[in-house]
């Protein structure tokens, strides 16, 4: 595991978990806010993707 030697020599590397945790915390905050305020039309459109009527010419089960 040679790469360890390089990682060990980086000073202040301990801070990177804190930075990434903060990044993800912000990411989720923004994501949640967006999900809750998203355009209703868009959400309805996405929801109905599995049901597109022109999806198949198959009328056997419709």
């Amino acid at each position, binding site marked *: 595991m040679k790469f360890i030697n390089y990682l060990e020599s980086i000073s202040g590397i301990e801070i990177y978990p804190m930075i990434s945790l903060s990044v993800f915390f912000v990411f989720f905050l923004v994501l949640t806010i967006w999900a809750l305020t*998203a355009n209703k039309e868009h959400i309805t459109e996405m929801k109905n993707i599995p049901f597109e009527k022109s999806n198949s010419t198959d009328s056997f089960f419709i």
Partner: protein
Amino acid sequence: MQVEKFSYDNKIVKQFAFATILWGLVGMLVGLLIALQLIYPQLNLIPQTTFGRLRPLHTNAVIFAFVGNAIFMGVYYSLQRLCKARMFNDTLSKIHFWGWQLIIVSAALTLPFGITSGKEYAELEWPIDLAIAVIWLVFGWNMFGTIIKRRERHLYVGIWFYIATFITVTLLHVVNSVELPVSLFKSYSVYAGVQDALVQWWYGHNAVAFFLTTSYLGLMYYFIPKASNRPIYSYRLSIIHFWALIFLYIWAGPHHLLYTALPDWAQSLGVVFSFMLIAPSWGGMINGLLTLRGAWDKVREDVVLKFMVVAITAYGMATFEGPMLSLKKVNAIAHYTDWIVAHVHIGALGWNGFLTFGILYWLIPRIYRTELYSKRLANTHFWLGSLGILFYAIPLYWAGFTQYLMWQEFTPEGFLKYPNFLETVTQLMPMYAMRALGGTMYLLGFVIMAYNIVKTVKAGSLLENEAAEAAPLSNDEGGHAGEHWHRWIERRPVQLMLLSLVVVIIGGAIEMIPTFMIKSNIPTIASVKPYTPLELQGRDIYIREGCYTCHSQMVRPLRFETARYGEYSKAGEFIYDHPFQWGSKRTGPDLARVGGKYPDSWHYNHMMDPTSMSPGSIMPQYSFLLDAELDTTSTSGKIRAMQTLGVPYPVGFDKIANKELIKQADEITASLKKDGIETLNDREIVALIAYLQRLGRDIKASHPTVTVNK
């Protein structure tokens, strides 16, 4: 706009559907056999069918053959429809299908013969590991090709789950399978001891997360709306569900290693993230169940929905139980006992099994243009399966608690109340019998389904290419100024994949890099020395026989453990263990301190017939080790491999290794002779005895200042 005509490939869906039924039968049949072996040890019959070799076959068959083929069946059906496009390339689909079946067959032809890497849920040896990587990439290529040539601009949430499954399983498989080949059928994990354990359970936990869970959530988000004919309850919730789940899951691996020699900070990290997992998991469950709001009258009549409701409920139960089990106090009870076996079977039989059955009952009549042969039989299957799960799980929960309570009970004088481990096992026999009954019921239901589906298939005719039409995507991206970034990513599969990859890599890296980096995480113990050549050979026999499926090598720092086994295990004791053999279930006692506990002759007789030394033992007989000749031609190669991995054997030791081996073997045969046992010095049993007698001895020599786990 010009409408394009194309067709959906139903033939590949059919092939994967048939494969999942076939391998499901095989995997569950093996499962039933090993369940019966715990009650009737004489069913171990020949070396190839001993519990230790068949248990990995069962887990691999059920996870990668039964569930694996079911994932591909569901993905190939839903992806085409969600993308309004045929699969990218029919040849890739064929290579994927036949390649995967070939891998399964090679697993079935190697595991019973003891060809194993000895890492739980990743037992397949390196040539098969390579094949898995190639075929998995073919699947990914085919999937991305389809997504790229799609006719639907937005990617439905199900597809995100498929993408995350693909990319994370790739990462897990590659990182965990880094191994150094010694021969065509033998390799050593490049990681050792604590690091190997951490990588292995990062893999093991996330194989559950990303092979058995995210893929099936993708299927849930497609097939539940289709089967109930109503859209998913909350699309907003599904977005949060997706990102939160893949972010949190990847961190949770260390909860498999609580109270072990893993550094404390890593254990705590695992606990925190495991506990948080309950939020997205239940979000997903609620989303699935609420989709059926107002349709409960349908659930009563439609067997497909019945299966799906039980599947989601089982998912909810298992994902409630999981975070609870990751709490240290609860984990101390459940770890090494049958509670864990019950827990995983709620997931496997309930979530994976029942969702697969629901999809099969829905999908087969559709692609065969007919009705299901018998709804009554499907209902019978439903009830047999549901009761089977209960009969399987409840006795095992009971068994888990019973065994824990017996392990930890002290007399008023401060001695263990049940010092003989075997007592705590024989107590469980009625529970094991009930479990086998539950498994039989579940399997019987499965057979009924197979019959029902064969009949349905015979009555209908497969629509191999289902005609469809849709308008192609225009060059106009549909974007506009001020549109939200998440809508942007919903259209871009490659970026979505990369973002998912970054999310899981960061979690995995934070968990693992420090353990690899900081020397203080694994305090070395001066008296811990590399294995002798004979012990190394013996260790490989231990791995070959799958002893780790029933015996742990990890004494936890709990009073009832140290009273039974001795000093608790230290991280520094395992630095030469490629791979680690901590185990995860104690059907037999822990072996970390077994060295020197019994004379050599005890082990000899015990292997020949365990009941001669421990009346009532359910361990298989290993009398074939008494006659099998030890292959010493591999010794020098193994020593060189270990040297490459950093085990400090002196230079040129590989040349004299066999001389050392014979010397030590002679000592053991001499000690056996003193007890009246005549054996040749080149038998496998001699090497195994050497290894077992070495376990835990180093640390006994070094007292009194042993570095503690930090």
